[in-house]
């Protein structure tokens, strides 16, 4: 029996000829208070560490309870860089927040990255005044105890 082998042409499909993307991610500080502006920056690079312009960045920021508090879709600049900013809502939970980013561009394989930042309790002026008073009080207390201990040693 003669088997006829028919070679069917394959439909042209997008390839990943340009390679794998890499995305870097950073925040302008490690910790923030509610009401402060957070700036997220990063860069999209290819396998040769060359900047990738016009890459799409998908950003999701989750709070310590994994609830999403911010999303953004931005496009990288000519030098592959991108920036996203938002103000941390007043009343935000304290703890560790995570910024997730996915970089994508036609012809490349997507890249993901994440970074964490902390939201810490806000110190008001009155809080600061209490803290200073408490520090002075403790300092005086320690000094007096030392003096008392020295007197005891002499006796």
């Amino acid at each position, binding site marked *: 029996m003669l088997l006829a082998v028919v070679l069917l042409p394959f*439909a*042209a*499909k*997008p*390839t990943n*000829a*340009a390679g794998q993307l890499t995305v870097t991610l950073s925040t302008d500080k490690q910790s923030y208070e509610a009401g402060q502006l957070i700036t997220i920056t990063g860069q999209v690079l290819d396998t040769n560490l060359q900047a990738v312009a*016009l890459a*799409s960045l*998908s*950003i*999701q920021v*989750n709070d310590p309870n994994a609830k*999403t*508090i*911010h*999303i*953004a*879709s931005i*496009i990288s*600049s000519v030098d592959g860089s991108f920036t996203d900013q*938002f*103000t*941390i*809502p*007043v009343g935000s939970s304290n703890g560790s927040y*995570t910024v*997730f*980013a*996915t970089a*994508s*561009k*036609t*012809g*490349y394989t*997507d890249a*993901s990255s*994440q970074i964490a930042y902390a939201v810490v309790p806000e110190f008001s002026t009155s809080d600061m005044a209490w803290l200073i008073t408490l520090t002075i009080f403790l300092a005086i207390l320690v000094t007096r105890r030392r003096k008392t201990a020295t007197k005891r040693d002499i006796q």
Partner: protein
Amino acid sequence: MHVRADGNESTTTTTMEESWTGVGDFVLKVDPPQHTVHLNEKSKNATYAVRVMALPGFEGEVELSLKGLPDESEYVFSREEGVPAPLFQSVLRVEVGHSTRPGQYNLTIIATSEGNGYHHEGDNHVEADDHSDSEITHEATVFLIVDGEPTTTGRHFEKRLEVRVATNADYVKGPNVEIFGKVYLRHGDSISDAMVSIEVLDPSGGTMPVSSTNTDKAGFFSKTFALAPNAMEGLYTVYVTASFAPYKDAVAKTTFTVGGSDAPSILITSITVTKTDDTIPSEFLAGETVVVWVTISNTGADLQNGMIWVEIIDSNDVPISVVVVIAAIHHGEQVKTGLQVVLGSDSPTGIYDVKSLVSNGEISKGGKFLDSEGTSFAVA
């Protein structure tokens, strides 16, 4: 009779006294003709009723723009676009900043229609190859008087360049693809004569050359390019970069599909904000529920477990809420969904932004956004 309109851009200036009668396309009216805002008062806003009346035979969509906004001020239309059938109404709300210089400002409201669906004189049908060539523009001017002493305290309205883009067909069968959009300042003036560079990536990531163009006086741009007869099937991505000194360049993208595609081709075709009773108010109040309606189409492969996100950003640029729903959007489907957000009882007044995005999963799990769209509303 079939009439082609090549290079016919019609522009008229509508005065306050003009009646609703006339011939042609539509009539634009804005009332009242003048508003005064006092800088020393807590409430520093002015509202104008904008009405667009279609004249017999006109069936096109009309989009509203504004020029002449004072520095340090913002504006929002309760409805930025609509089809006058026969009446399309919107409310223009201008929020004047603390540091706005006192004086009289001429606000020019521009109503633009692409002319699609415009039937002139009975059976005559106007059809155009190019978006800008068939553009119909009407303008109305009202006055905004700002008095009092400006201060340097209070919120600074950051003006940044923004651009949005779409194509004439998300599923292209013909050889010509029309790319059009608008350049404007965030909550500010439309930008005329901005340079718009266009880049198209084919499904393999190859760049297709498309020359640049400039925006017209209402901030719109349009460019048509031809696909090769043997154009690769799949998802094409269009990037537009808008440049206008002294602002930082703005970039936006959209997609279209040629033939079949193994990737979803998602487009948010509309985003509107209503009350729970489906009405579009000129402003919301603190504590009220805002319903964001998002309409999405998919001309590519099925999107299983798609996620439709809405983020609300208050007038102080604080993201106050992110809501999400999961929905499958199959090939050829159009999905409309409403997401509710309750404004806090202590919500600041001003102009709020709404962002809607569609993703193929959680970004935290490697997903990505496939399209995004935005709108604004006022809180009084």
